[in-house]
């Protein structure tokens, strides 16, 4: 896998820049998912607690809000680094095309502002506002979180399907920022990402309570802590499978070479098979399980349809096939496994209004958190590595966009060290938070020296 990336690189600094971007984005994307999904879950628990007077919901809401405070802070700073890195690492992209994707980023700035303001109020003024007013302050967080995801991903979608500009003599002359923002990849990419955020949040949160329940804590508090996020994630999962199919069709239309890499298809042809597994050796996919005509059927709803292969472009214009092919398979496999888990919960719930009692169910939920993150990262690798060697698909090569200054390798080393420490500290703090017994009245306020225990 690493070899595939190295082969596509043009030197150590270019490789370092790509790895640094991959590390900081791959890190941020996880926290960002919680930024999108967690406010909704927390608000739902708070609302249920208020409506039913069930203290367990209220406790869950407060506990989640505390974790949300940490995750939001870490997400805010790790997201800021990305906006720095856009210029530090890819000045060739931003210096020319920065203005084309400026509009969604400006809108994202506003959305993030709203999010940060209301997160401040929601977390710190919990006991200072009446319950109804407090819940209302949570709504802008949910809306702005989803909107942020939409705007950022629409800018990324533009890199996949660049539209809305004219180039003349190396300069951008005519920009339609709205057309750039609503490019052909925006609809499916944004929906796919936002749903993924709810899946990751739901499965990860549920997995924490599944682990606790496997350790014997099966009280109502833990059962609700598992059920609420899991139910939301399970409801989203079947929709996500459908959106994934929609996304694949769109990629087949707009980025056929990426689709060929996802499927490990080297030769253009009619009635092509679907490859499961396999590895690319010497320009050929080997050891793959073939399902005859299935790829043609899946991409064009016609078993004899033509599907474009990697041979449509010269080798230097192809993405690293092993990475993209395997990332795609992992994402799809995990997606279907999560679908199976969702169906299990749905069927048992439908029959007896209670989640499955089997320990295997709890084990599956405990694993689903890590699995959903794996699917998230794989899907993101498919999107971004599959776009290579282009930073703007078909327009600008990544190697032409990178900062030519020497020493980027050392920046990457430093960033890796910092992110390692950050990861350890974040996991440590979140684990401590989960192990903490008392839950303060307000999640953030006055917990410095002492707090009243609910």
């Amino acid at each position, binding site marked *: 896998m690493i070899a595939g990336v190295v082969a596509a690189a043009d030197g150590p600094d270019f490789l370092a820049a790509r790895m640094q971007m991959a590390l900081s984005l791959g890190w941020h994307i996880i926290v960002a998912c919680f930024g999108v999904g967690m406010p909704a879950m927390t608000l739902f628990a708070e609302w249920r607690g208020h409506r039913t007077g069930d203290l367990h919901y209220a406790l869950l809401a407060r506990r989640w809000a*505390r974790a949300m*405070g*940490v995750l939001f*802070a870490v997400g*805010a*700073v790790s997201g*800021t*680094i990305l*906006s*720095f*890195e*856009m*210029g*530090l690492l890819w*000045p060739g992209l*931003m*210096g*020319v095309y*920065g*203005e*084309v994707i*400026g*509009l969604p*980023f*400006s*809108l994202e*700035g*506003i959305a*993030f*502002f*709203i999010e*940060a*303001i*209301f997160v*401040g109020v929601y977390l*710190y*003024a919990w006991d200072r506002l009446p319950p109804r007013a407090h819940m209302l302050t949570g709504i802008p967080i949910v809306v702005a979180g989803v909107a942020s995801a939409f705007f950022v991903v629409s800018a990324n979608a533009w890199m996949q399907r660049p539209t809305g500009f004219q180039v003349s003599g190396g300069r951008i*002359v*005519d920009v339609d*920022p*709205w057309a750039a923002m609503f490019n052909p990849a925006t609809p499916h990419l944004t929906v796919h990402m936002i749903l993924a955020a709810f899946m990751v949040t739901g499965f990860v949160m549920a997995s924490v309570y599944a682990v606790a329940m496997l350790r014997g804590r099966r009280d109502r508090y833990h059962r609700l802590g598992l059920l609420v996020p899991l139910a939301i994630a399970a409801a989203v999962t079947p929709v996500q499978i459908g959106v994934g199919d929609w996304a694949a069709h769109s990629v087949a239309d707009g980025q056929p070479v990426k689709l060929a890499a996802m499927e490990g298809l080297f030769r253009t042809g009619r009635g092509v098979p679907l490859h499961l597994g396999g590895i690319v050796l010497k320009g050929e996919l080997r050891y793959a399980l073939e399902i005859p005509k299935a790829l043609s059927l899946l991409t064009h709803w016609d078993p004899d349809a033509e599907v474009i292969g990697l041979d449509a472009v010269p080798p230097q214009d192809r993405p690293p096939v092993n990475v993209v092919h395997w990332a795609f398979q992992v994402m799809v496999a995990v997606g279907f496994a999560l679908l199976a888990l969702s169906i299990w919960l749905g069927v048992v719930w439908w029959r007896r209004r209670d989640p499955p009692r089997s320990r295997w169910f709890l084990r599956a939920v405990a694993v689903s958190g890590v699995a959903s993150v794996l699917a998230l990262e794989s899907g993101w690798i498919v999107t971004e590595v599959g776009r290579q060697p282009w930073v703007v698909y078909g327009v600008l090569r990544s190697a032409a966009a990178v*900062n*030519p*200054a*020497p*020493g*980027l390798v050392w*920046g990457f080393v430093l*960033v890796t060290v*910092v992110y390692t420490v950050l990861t350890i*500290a*974040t996991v440590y*703090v979140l684990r*401590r*938070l989960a192990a903490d017994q008392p839950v303060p009245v307000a999640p953030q*306020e006055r*917990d*410095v*020296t*002492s707090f009243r225990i609910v």
Partner: protein
Amino acid sequence: MPLPEIMLGVLWVGLTAYVLFGGADFGGGVWDLLAGRAEGGRPRRDLIEHSIGPVWEANHVWLIFVIVLMWTGIPPVFAALSSTLYIPLTLAALGIIARGAAFAFRKVSTELPQRRLFGAAFAFSSVATPFFLGTVAGAIASRRVPAGIAKGDLVTSWVNPTSVVAGVMAVGTAAYLAAVFLTRDAQRVGDERLAEDFRRRALGCGIVVGVLSAAGLAVLAWDAPRLFAELTSGRALPLLVLSVAAGLLSLVLLWRRAYVAVRLTAALAVAGLLWGWGVGQYPELLPGVTLRDAAATDSVLAASLGALAVGALLLVPSLWWLYATFQREHTAPAAREHDRR
């Protein structure tokens, strides 16, 4: 007014807000560093944490706002700056991570060793980050970042007299603003002793920053003569005068314990400096690159400015409400916690 000028003006408003509000949050970290030993410094640290907690994330967004407006409004300048100055910008970015994460981690930690560790990370990065951002400002002000991608010297562009002065000034003004704001915060929660303590710090820091500014002007005369000329005899002179007058008035107000009024004058002193630099350098953004050369196409500027105008309708009342909510409180966290023990 033409669109590029409006865009630059909005960008500078964002930068001013970041320096005033985000800067004060960094300054809080500076005072956290200088608060003393764990037990003795506890009331100071609690007040700092209490003041920064609900607002720092919103204040931090101004930086993202400035960066995004740069690549949207003046993309070639953004590319030139971030490529030539990638070393201080990377260090500032890592400082931002350390500051924000450590602050949030300390907030939820209860045991002393962890609080110490996260507190140290928070405090040191609160000094380092504004310093590196200041060196970037110095690099631009002393015309050391040429147009084009990575065309400037990777080291001397930000390791030079103007950059060092700007870096130290950034830390100094951040600490000064924080001390001024914290004085009133301490008074509002009813802790007069703490208010006195921060008043002394604000006075001392104000004098240091004043002397530094004078020294900084001398450095500019030698290292950035063009900007110096504009500041001392050109268009920017009124703003420099405003800054100096507001700075001196702030010292008087602090001396007379007018803690609310001094918030305004201290902010004016800092903003005057910032706008003096902006007006002094306008319209040249980089050597040989004017605003007109670098500005994005009008369709982009119009769309982004329009979006921001609509966004401002949502943002301004929300921000106002955020600050009002947390400035309204009249109870003392420290005193109350002492009672509870």
